[in-house]
């Protein structure tokens, strides 16, 4: 993201906020929920700030004992993303068919390209993880926004600019090509208001952050 119009303090703040949101989304779509996660997701501060964006949860998330909720959501996460049976393969290469690929596939062309991007960035994909998984791609954005904030804080505008350019490229070449579609699938398929709402947040947030809506010119208040 570029924060060109804003004062430098505010640019740092915006980058840190973006990092927080990307990290949270990466956490939610990257691994199974825990009791602690559901507990803190139900904190007032979180619910309020989501409500301000028009995102809310239903009773299935709000009024169930947290231990049970964590178990139920774990089951839902597994059903949604792992199977057995029909499930959402949340990998870019499954959503985006590479040139010359007869059909979408795991470890396809996009996977290689994402791996290459991480390498350029200095990130390593731990063993056993697939580079173009939804959670990892969101995490990559978190890493880039965090580094951007750090550079801004250090007064390294050129470095921050390079990171903004990397984000822009990652958005264009990867996120925007498939995140909207996979989030739509989650919204359609999930029995849980938690995953439906988080998918809606992810789709909206990626789109805004990638198309530059969130910028230094972000309005103070929207009517």
């Amino acid at each position, binding site marked *: 993201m570029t924060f060109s119009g804003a004062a430098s303090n505010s640019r740092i703040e915006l980058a840190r906020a973006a990092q927080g949101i990307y990290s*949270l989304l990466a956490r939610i779509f990257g*691994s199974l929920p825990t009791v602690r996660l559901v507990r803190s997701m139900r904190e007032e501060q979180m619910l309020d700030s*989501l409500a301000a*964006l028009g995102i809310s949860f239903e009773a299935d998330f709000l009024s169930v004992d947290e231990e049970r909720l964590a178990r139920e959501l774990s089951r839902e996460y597994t059903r949604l993303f792992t199977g057995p049976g029909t499930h959402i393969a949340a990998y870019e290469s499954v959503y985006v068919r590479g040139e010359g690929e007869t059909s979408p596939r795991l470890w396809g062309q996009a996977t290689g*390209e994402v791996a*290459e991007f991480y390498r350029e960035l200095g990130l390593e994909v731990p063993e056993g993880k697939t580079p173009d998984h939804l959670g*990892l791609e969101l995490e990559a954005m978190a890493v880039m926004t965090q580094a951007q904030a750090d550079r801004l804080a250090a007064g390294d505008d050129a470095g921050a600019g390079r990171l903004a350019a990397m984000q822009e490229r990652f958005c264009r070449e990867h996120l925007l090509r498939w995140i909207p579609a996979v989030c739509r699938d989650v919204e359609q398929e999930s029995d849980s208001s938690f995953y439906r709402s988080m998918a809606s*947040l992810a789709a909206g947030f990626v789109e805004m952050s990638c198309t530059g809506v969130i910028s230094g010119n*972000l309005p*103070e208040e929207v009517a």
Partner: protein
Amino acid sequence: MRTISRRDFLRLGAASTAVLAVESQFRPLARAAELLEGGRSVNRTSGLPRSFLPSTCTQCPAGCGIIGYVEESRLVKIGGNTKHISNAGTLCARGQAGINALYDPDRLLKPLKRTGARGQDSWVEIEWEEALAEVAQRMAAARSNPQSLLFLTEDVERDPLGRRFTHAYGSPNAIGSAGIHDANKKVATSLTWGAAGDIPDVARCKYVLVFGANPLENNPNFVGMARRFVDGIQQNQSKVVVFDVRLSHTTTFSHELHYVAPGKMALVALAMANVIMQDGLYDRDFIERWTNVSPEQLAQHLAQYSPERAEAEAGVSALDIRRLAAEFASTKPATTITDSVLSGFSNGVQNERAVMLLSIITGNIDNRGGLCMPRQYGLDEPAPAPPQPGVSVFTNPENVAFPSQQAVAQVLRQAKDRQAEVRVLMTHSVNPLYSSPDEGLNEDVLRDENVIPFHVAITPYLNETAAFADIIMPETTYMEDWEIEVRPSLEQVPFVALRQPVVPPLESARSFFEIARDLASRIGGGMEQFFAFNSVSDYLKARISSVGGLANAGGLDYLKQHGIWFDPKSRPNYGSYEAGGFSTPSGRIEVFSPRLAERGFAPLPSYETVQAFRELGERELVLTIYETALHTDGKTGNCMWLNEIQHDNPALINPETAARLGIEDGDKIKLIRSSKSGEAKERSIETEAFLTEGVHPDVIAMANGVGHTGFGRIAQGEKFKKDEVRHRELRDANFQLVWWGDHGGTGVNAKRIVPIEMDPIGGGQAWGDMVVSVAKD
């Protein structure tokens, strides 16, 4: 979601951060200590800056694109280059273990000169100056008969500098050892469609017949082919039917496995072709337009190969043959994969032609998903090109009808028989004493100073062959060296790739380029003009000068950055023959080969009986030496990681057979080469029996790649401490973990009892003609 205001945004950001603060750590991506965007990276544990460079793997012939990761001049990891058209980022175990090849604890870093008798393993370290001066002086003196230079390398095609050096000297004798594995296939395909080799388009086919090949473990195009083979099964639901003598990894991915009696696969293929012709399932149009036979003529010839005959002789049921023939002919596109268990016999060329016939009569030739012709850039020889020095008994032996440069397994025997004089033997990173058949004889030849007066080995390692040298020049490994690499493309789009040093040469190791240039200038007499390159860059630039399009993309600099170049606009040109026909004398596919007829061989694809199998005695079995995914013949034996996984090779015997022979699992057994009259000494090996249904009852199978008797301590399973390694940069604490030497040993090189015998047409070694009698020890 509503449009967001700055305040909402910051608030959600803060709330998210709060959530993450209470959540246990979540770091799916291991993050660099500091993010360094744009081509640099940092080790996540040590924090050291890391650089990486693309290059090419040469641990096997496939030539995959690799990325070498380097920290403080030390190679720490080899990864796959996602830009490479063949492997697209995938690597096999051997590729990753290239680090072990670079840092082999017994790697030579100083020139050695022999002090005792040949092969006695006593050496003195000398300076480069002395080594180069002595070799140059010997070679200059020998040059009154330039043909007396015998240059042995792994594969002449992949050693363009070696060939150039030999030709510049005036000798035609640049001989590759790779031909012992693939010459028959190359000759069969050349005779038939005018191009050496084939590329089955397995990713796009719907049906694959695998004849004696094992694409999931070992193949000339290994991981690229394996990847596409699996893609075909998963993406295309292609059906896979395997004919083999053993349950290979490939068969675990197949729908059917049919055991075939060794050496008799052609009977099955020809019976299938027969069914396709008799039942009218063939592609008449293709046969009439593009081959030099008529369907009627072919049907008549094939009538002798009934499914019933194949059942009786090869052991595949006639019913299955009919069914599979109909399936293959009616599923389009379909293809075949063939390899050494089909072609490594004295009837290998004919076997290959028999299987190729199936693709031809069904029109699956050079089409999407069919059997494609190899596409590869032919690079110009940098000017001035040395004149072609003609032929010799080594390049064109009398007992091979269609010798290719790589077809010669017998040069050392020829030297012994004094068919031509050898004054200087130069071996370049090749290990025939391990890889060639008949080790005993080869050893005797190399030991005999009357036959080989001078032997210089250019190699990073003291392997079995270098052990018989007079001088060893420590060459750089492939991780420290330059070359332009071309291979047949698995996507039918030709490419040019680069091998470049990912680390600087260790100590005083020198590249073959430097050694050859230095020797040429010292030998002189005109030879130096062919190596008058100012730098290796000049040489590389000259090599790629004829590749149109690459220069515009940035030439050598582009290759240094990306490791590979191909024309981004080019698309697979299937059906390339439609424009100008096939590169055979008739311009058609020569199903009937006038060239074979002329030399007195069966001109139509035929089954020839393997003499050796005529009568298998009571205790006799056919020895099959199979390749695994973990070793490349004679080459990777010093790689620690690979040896840890595969270090021995017990003999696989079918339990039924074992019961008949009174052998139990784990028994010590002896394999004795079935003697032929006049043989001087009995040759045998000892090993252990491993009983498994996964092998044909007439076969005893042993893995290749292990059983080294030289090649350093790792290859021989010796355990040692870090400080017992001479050169500091080769020290690795893990050397004490070499455990397998004390637990069952390091296997046996089964090739040492195999006699040198070739297919008389193609000159490929007849590995499979090997009958042994099995005795309990």
